Structure formats: C-alpha cells, structure tokens
C-alpha cells in the first residue's frame, strides 16, 4: 500500500482507501475515488498527477494525491 503521489507514470493499482478531512475526501469520492476502484497513472510531475479513474482524467495536486492510498499492481 502506498500514497498515490509516490506512483510513477504507467503505474496501475486499486484504491485502498481515501483519507483526510470531510470536504476534501467527499470531493475525491464524488469524482470517483472510492475503495476498490482501479486507477491508472497517466502522468506524474513530482507527485502532481494525471490519473484515469472510472474513465475520466483527473489532475491532482500532490497534497490531494497523498490522501489516496493504493495497492500497487493489483487489478479488479
């Protein structure tokens, strides 16, 4: 398990859990970051990411990305 901001471009995994405080966590979950979802990292700029989750492309700043914990290499 690792925080998403450490992932590299091309990495795939399953979301384990989304941490952090109420509003930010809700925002991430609304955008589709829920437990068990596959994510695919498309681009990484030192922790700022573009990821594919549920077919949409989301750009995430480092400080949000580290709230999302993934299990690297697992697939649904």
């Amino acid at each position, binding site marked *: 398990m690792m925080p998403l901001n450490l992932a590299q*471009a091309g990495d*795939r995994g399953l979301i384990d859990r*989304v941490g*952090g*405080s*109420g*509003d*930010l*966590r*809700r*925002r*991430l*979950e*609304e*955008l*589709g970051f*829920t*437990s068990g979802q*596959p994510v*695919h990292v*498309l*681009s990484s*700029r*030192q922790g*700022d990411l*573009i990821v*594919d989750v*549920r*077919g*949409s*492309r*989301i*750009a*995430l*700043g480092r*400080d*949000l990305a580290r709230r999302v914990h993934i299990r690297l290499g697992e697939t649904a």
Partner: protein
Amino acid sequence: MSKEISIALAGNPNSGKSTLFNALTGARQSVGNWPGVTVEKKTGRLKADTSCQVVDLPGIYSLAAGSVDEIVARDYLVSGEPAVILNIVDGSNLERNLYLTTQLCELGLPVVIAVNMMDVVKRTGDEIDLERLASELSCPVLPISALLGEGLDALTTTLLQGVRGELPLPRPRVFSAPIEEVLAEIENLIRPHVRSVPGERSRLIALFEGDEHEKERLNLPGSTLSAIEKLIADLETRIDDDAVSLIGQERYQAIQNLLAGSRLEHGRGQMTLSDRIDQVVTNRILALPIFAAVMFLVYYLSVSTVGGWWTDWANDGLFGDGFFFLGRGREAYDEQVEEFELAEMSVEAFEEEAAAADLEAETATGLVAEVILYNDSGVEKERVAVSHDDYLAALDVEEPDPAAFGPWVPGVPVLVEQALEAGHVSGWLHDLVLDGIVAGVGAVLGFVPQMLVLFFFLALLEACGYMARIAFVMDRIFRSFGLSGTSFIPMLVSTGCAVPGIMAARTIESERDRRLTVATTPFMPCSAKLPVIALIAGALFDDAWWVAPSAYFAGIGAILVSGIILKKFRAFAGDAAPFVLELPSYRLPRPGDVLRSMLERAWSFIKRAGSIILLAQVFVWFTTSYGWADGAVRAVEQDQSFLAVLGSAVSWIFAPLGWGHWQAVVATITGLIAKENVVGTFGTLYGGFSEVSEAGWEIWANMRVHFTTLSAYSFLLFNLLCLPCFAAIGAIRREMNSARWTLFAIAYQTGLAYAVSLIFYQLGAMFSGTGSIPGTVTALVLLAGLLYLLLRPNPNRRLLPAAARS
C-alpha cells in the same frame, strides 16, 4: 416566485452543457447573477415554446454544499421554481456523470436525462444500454449530440411533456438497510419542524451527510440537530466508516448496476489520443516551453498584430478624425499629410531663422533654415535645408482633405461635433460632450478590439481543453506563493489588460483564492502602461534595455510577495485550495460557442465603460479643464485647473518618493482614466504639446529638469503598482461583489506602491550620497516592516493541524 415555467439544466463541467443550452435557446438568452454571489446566471427561452424558460445551472459534480456553485444549484433546485430538471450527462464519461444524476433523482421533480456525445460513443465502439437506464431510474433517457445538433427535437418534445406534468417522478436509489433506518429516524425527528418541502428525500440525505448549509436552510432547533448527529455517530461506530463515504460508495454501486447492460471500455486503462497529447503537453521538460510558445502566439496576435491594427483603427479612426472605408486612399492621403507637415515645419523654421537674423521672412532671399526630422522614438532621421524658394512653396501647401482621396468615413467625435454645432449648443456643453464623454468613452472602448481578439483566443484555448492543462502545469510554481494554478490565467490576461484579467478570475472556485487573485492581478504591467515605461526609459535612462523587463519583474514580484504577505492574514488564511481538476478530452470547439463566449465577455466590459467609468471620466475632465479664475468657475489652462490646485495641495505626500511636484501628481491622477494618459498629461504640462508621440521624446529635455533617474524610476514604480485605472477598479468591484473588499484591494495596492517607491528612492539617495537622515530612517523602517510581513511565521499555521484532523 414567478409563474413562468422553468426547466433547470444541470450537469457536470465539460459535459457539453453550454452547447446544449445554446442549441435549445438560440439567441434568446440573458445573463445575470445568482442572488448574493458572483456566479453567473444564464437564462434563455426554449426555442420550441417561448413561454418556457431554461435556467442554466453552474457546472457541478455533486449537489453537496462544497462550493458556491453547488450551493447555488441546490438552492435553486429546492426553491420550488423549476418544473422539470434536464440533466445532461457525458456519454463518453458516463460513470462519473451519473453520480450527479443519482442526486437529482432524489429531489422529487421530474428528470429528463440527455446522454450527450453519442457520436463520440458510437465512434469509439462503446455501447450504452439506454433502456436499462430509463427503466431503472424511471425517467426518460434520450441520446443526443449537442455539438452536431442531433436528437434535440425528441428532447424538446419530452421536456414539454414534463412541463405539462406528463412524466413520472424518478425512482430514487434505496440505500442499504442501516442507512435507510437512520434516514427514517431523521425524518421522524424533523417532521414536527418542517412542512412538506420539495426535495424531501434529498434533504434527509444531506442531513445524513452533515451538510451544514442544509441545516441552516431547514432552521432546525439545536436539540433536533444534536439528536441527528448522535444517530449518525452511532451508525459510524457500528460500521466503522463515515457517513459521507458510505453514501458515496453506495451511489457508485448503484451506478454499476445501472450500467450492467452497457459496454464502456474506451479510455479505461488504456491510452487515448488525448492522453498521448497530454504526455507531451504536460511533460516535465516540454510543458513550459510549449506553454510559452502558445502564449507568445496568443499575445502577439492580440496585442501586436490583428488586435493592434484593429485598436489603432478604433482609436485613430472610429474615435479619432475618421478612417478610409476598407483603407482605400489611405496611402496617398498619408503621403500628402507628411508633405503638409514638412511644409508646416519648414515655414516655422524659416520664420524663426528670419526673426533671429532680424529679417522679414517674405523678403529674406539669401537665408537658409534647417528642419530636423525625428522618428517615433526621438532619434534624428534626416535634416532638410529650407531656402527662400522652399519657404514660398511651403506657404502654398494646403492641408489635405481626406475625403478627396477615397471613401472617407468621419470618426465619432467629428460627427458628434457636427451635430453639436448644428444644434448651436453652448460652449461648455459642447466641451463636456466632446472632450469629457466622447473622448472618455472612446479611450475605454478603444481597447475593445484588442480585447475581442484576446477573448477569442482565450475562449478557444478553454473550449479545446488546453486551459485546464495550463492550470495544472503552473500549479506547482504558484503554490509556493500561496496561490493556486488557477490564478495564473488571470495574471497572464492582465499583461494585455487588467479588466479581462480580473474577469477571468471568476472561474476560480475557492473564494479566498479568487479574492487574492483579483486584488493582486492588476500589478501586471498592462499594454496601457507600456507608453509610460517607454517615456521614463527614454527621458531618463537613455532607452536602456533593462527598464521594460524590470517593470515586468516589479509586477510579478509584487504579486508573489503579496501572495506570501496576504495569506498570513486571517481573511486569506490557509493554503491555496488543493488542486483537483477534471481534464476534458481535447476536442475541436464549435465556432459559435467560442464567438458567443468572446462576445459575452466583451459586452460585459462595454456595459461597465458606459456607467461608473463614464462618471469618473467626466469628473477628471471637468477638474482638468476648469478652475477658479477671476472669482468664477471657468475654463482655464490645465496648469490652473482644479486638479492642478489639488495636485499642488497633496504633492507633499509624494515628496518622500522624490517627485513632490504637482505635474507628476496630476499625471498620476489622469492615469487613472487609462494609464497611458500619464504620457499625454506630461506632454501638456512639460511641453505645451497637445499631443506627443508614444514615447513622448519631445519633452524628454524638460523632464530631466524635474526628475532625476532615481525619482523617475520611483515615479514609474508607483504608477505601475498603485491603484489601477477606473475600468479595472470597476471590474474589481464587480468580481469582489463588495465595496469593502474593493476598498481593501485598492488601498493595499496603493500602500504597497507607496512603500516600495519610498524604499527605492530613499535608499537609492542614501547610496548615491544625497539621502537625508529622516528619509533613510523611514525607508529602513518600511523595509523592515515589509520583510517582517514576508518572513514572519504564519500565525494561522497553528490552526491548520486541528482543521485537518476534523
């Protein structure tokens, strides 16, 4: 509320909502504001039935009260006004888009679902089981392509059915038993306090999610609220997860079920064309160069070429003497004008020479005078000898009449003047209309063409999807200064003009970030400040190459420094909102949508030029043209005007900055109409010229008498950073939507400008050995204050860990 039948259009950002709105309503649109907030409210009449109005809600991902947009949308949906909800969902991004749909279906209103971008879905080979969606949600689901205009007739027919009350209510999702039990208990708790209200189930769920805004809206007694909180806390300990997450996860499970018969594979776990473009465009090394190239192109086209030509036409033609229709005859006319000007100068030079030699010009046959021609930046171009014969010939040259050279269209001032003369209007009214109103409005409207071109490119970059990528790329750099990547676009636009720059801040979601951006973005040197920079560089610095770049550094520096200073105050406390943005797939925008967006922004600028700016213009015109003379108010020369008197009275304030003479103060004040007026005012005050060239080289020598290099640069710094022109102040007022915040912004800008100029001037004087002890001490105290504000530990930082834990 109104008896009108309303259809609320709701959908995610980038779902094609504006395109659908434009297609359904055509030209019958109006733009306003949602009550109390600066979020734009667009309404339009349905083409097929003009008694129905369509209300375009802000693009949102959810109805939870997380942002102003979401609050506005939810407020409207539960207000009882809309009869039908039209929910547009992006078929190529269905799973995420349906999240909002599940919430809309809980409001107790008929919902019509339009699945957009069906053309894209078909092309990529995906399949959507629309029937399953319709039967599971119990509402009509129609395939459309807003871009191609497909499926809109069927959609309109269904909407009209909904308006007539012929559609069933959607069947909301049933949550798992533990949640439903708590929801039922909440219902029992609030039943005594709330009459049956629209969107009841939606409200129960909002309370379950702990939505503060909903609690306020229902105005429940404290005991009920704490009972509800206890119910939720009990459930959370029982299942070891929080309420918000539970609801979110169950919504997505419901969506999986809705999509059981669909095949959605495109873009999932595989790279699309759009992803490949992103790999290049957001690449660690290439991102910035690509961005710089795109911006250079946009800037070059809007300021230097297309927009520049067009602006020149507006300033010199439409709001000047006039112009040649389609430019025919321009060249021949220009040649004649040049000839006439040379003749005028020859006559003048010869007569001066004759007077000096004590001769009558008409008879001084042996005399030869000399005319020196300069180029636009004051460099000597040519010397022409003027003999007696030349003089006589020059006397006969007549001023060319443009109408003789081609189809001449007179400018607005010329037409207005003719009308005023025909009406035998009294002198002061004539001047008020012509020099006050027409000249003032013209000065502002003259920027419109340039802005149209700039707006066009911005709308294009936005519609094709590149703007979202720029924000992502710039976020890293801006974050270190307390700003977010979304603040970057407004600053960029401000290098052209601060007004559209400030307007561009509207898209920033966090109110704190938006205010910070609006307050600091006018520091950027806009195109109207360039002549001022050129004047100072030419007059005092021998056109040194570093003056203009240093002005840009001063502007950017002021923004970054302000970011650090202001975020330590409570009102701007905390880090910039964390960056999260959906990146829409790149696509070719529809020309109609781009043009519409461009015109909307331009129109909003023009409306402002017509009101507050106009009044300010007239005020400055009056105080510069009139003064107290011979016991009455009458028209006077500018150096005796009210403004000159005022300038002298307050000039001591600016003495510590090195330019405490009234001319500089008056120039600064006239610069508030438009910054380039500083040059024109100096022209009048230092040279008696009614008009000077852009860099004002005619008055350089006189300026050197009043300014030293130090005081000139201090003057430049102050004028770059102090409160912006009236147009920009108007824009700040509109975007801040608060007089208090507007005052704060201009007071902060002016205060910073004063402090920076003073520090620069006094310390400069100290190092060059002309400083005074009080001056140096003041400068050092201010510098220490500024450094303290910059470097002091953030007093709000302590609060953050606690906030993060909650």
